[in-house]
């Protein structure tokens, strides 16, 4: 009877030890397998705001253009007569607020619209040493000419910036290309059957 009891106790001890060992084994295996794995990220739910976050790249917000122009300087007393023409080299910076770009999803037509902001001139810089002249009135060639001519060149470049549609069109096209480059991979991956179209910004 005692022998039977001892046998049962031994079996219980062996089973308990085995269960503990198995538990430790599973625990260690799980622990080491987790160490090899990078921490799992939460799956991203792709929405229009995800696209907006992706295109918000401030480093792309400014483009520079070359504007080497000619300003016409009239005579102060007789404005219908020209004193001289002055050529200058200028650089025009045009900005686009990428953080103002927003997306709209048309589920029926399967189109994602990217709404673009208008480009705007952020800076006009005229290189003073680049000034060169053609005189109509030789008396206008005085010691104070550089200052006056420089002011006229800045005025001319700024006026050109306000009226020249090509500058804005090109800045806008470049921005659209950048937005396509940034958003298209996500649209292709997560919005099956959709295509992108642009609105605004011109």
């Amino acid at each position, binding site marked *: 009877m005692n022998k039977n009891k001892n*046998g049962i106790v*031994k*079996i219980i001890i*062996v*089973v308990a030890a*085995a269960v503990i*060992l*198995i538990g430790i*084994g*599973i625990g260690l*295996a*799980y622990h080491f*397998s*987790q160490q*090899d*794995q*990078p921490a*799992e*990220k939460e*799956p*991203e739910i*792709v929405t229009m705001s995800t696209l907006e*976050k*992706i295109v918000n*790249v401030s*480093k*792309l917000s400014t*483009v*520079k*253009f*070359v*504007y*080497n*122009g*000619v300003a016409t300087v009239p005579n102060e007393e007789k404005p219908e007569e020209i004193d001289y*023409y002055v*050529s200058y080299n200028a*650089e025009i910076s045009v900005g686009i607020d990428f953080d103002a770009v927003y997306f709209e999803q048309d589920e029926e037509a399967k189109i994602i619209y990217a709404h673009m902001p208008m480009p705007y001139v952020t800076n006009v810089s005229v290189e003073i040493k680049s000034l*060169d002249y*053609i*005189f*109509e009135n030789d008396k206008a060639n005085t010691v104070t000419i550089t200052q006056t001519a420089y002011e006229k060149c800045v005025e001319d470049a700024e006026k*050109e910036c306000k009226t*020249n549609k*090509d*500058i804005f069109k*090109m800045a806008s*096209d*470049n921005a659209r*290309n*950048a937005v*396509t*480059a*940034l958003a*298209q*991979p*996500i649209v292709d*991956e*997560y919005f099956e059957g959709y295509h992108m179209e642009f609105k605004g910004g011109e």
Partner: protein
Amino acid sequence: MKKLSALITAIAVMLSCTACSTPQETETNQLEIVPQISRIRSICELAVMDCYYHNVAKSFEEDVEGFLWWTKDRHFWIEYNAVVRYGIDVSYVNISVEDDTVVITLPKARLLDCTIDDPKDFSYIVAKDSAAITAEDEKTAIAQAQDELIKEASGNSTLLDQAQQRAEELLREYIKGINDMGQKTYSVRFNIIDENGQSVQTSAESEETSDSETKAQS
């Protein structure tokens, strides 16, 4: 007793194997987006930068007309518009993925195209005492303007740097997007090559972490 011990050992071994196989299954189920060369190339194509270029071509020739001491110079300027295109030659773009690092081989940005507006849109400024300007003079001046524009635009380091940075920035953002959406976190290294395919610059490795991760780290 021996049978019982053998049975327990067998169960233990079986359970251990099951425990080890679980992560592998998880691994295959993970969403893994890998950087693709076709995508990298199309980004480089979209990274091209069209620049409005307004320029003045100047023509000056001394003593082209006259008799004895009475001479005339030919002096005029032509104001014109052009569009210059800067970008990366995509045929040289390549990628390799080494562990978690994406190495992007990228040629230096260069002038890809240069188009001058129709000559009928040019404006001319002729000096008051200039010798007469003939059609031939205009033609020569326009050809000279085109040559000068190409020379000037190909050497414009501000615009070339801008085009290079634009391409690199868009590619960085692409990898950052992959890191945000996928399970792997890649870092990026640029291998810049010259026109002979020789490496001229290798950028430091940078990890394109998502905004949320950056915030969490800080």
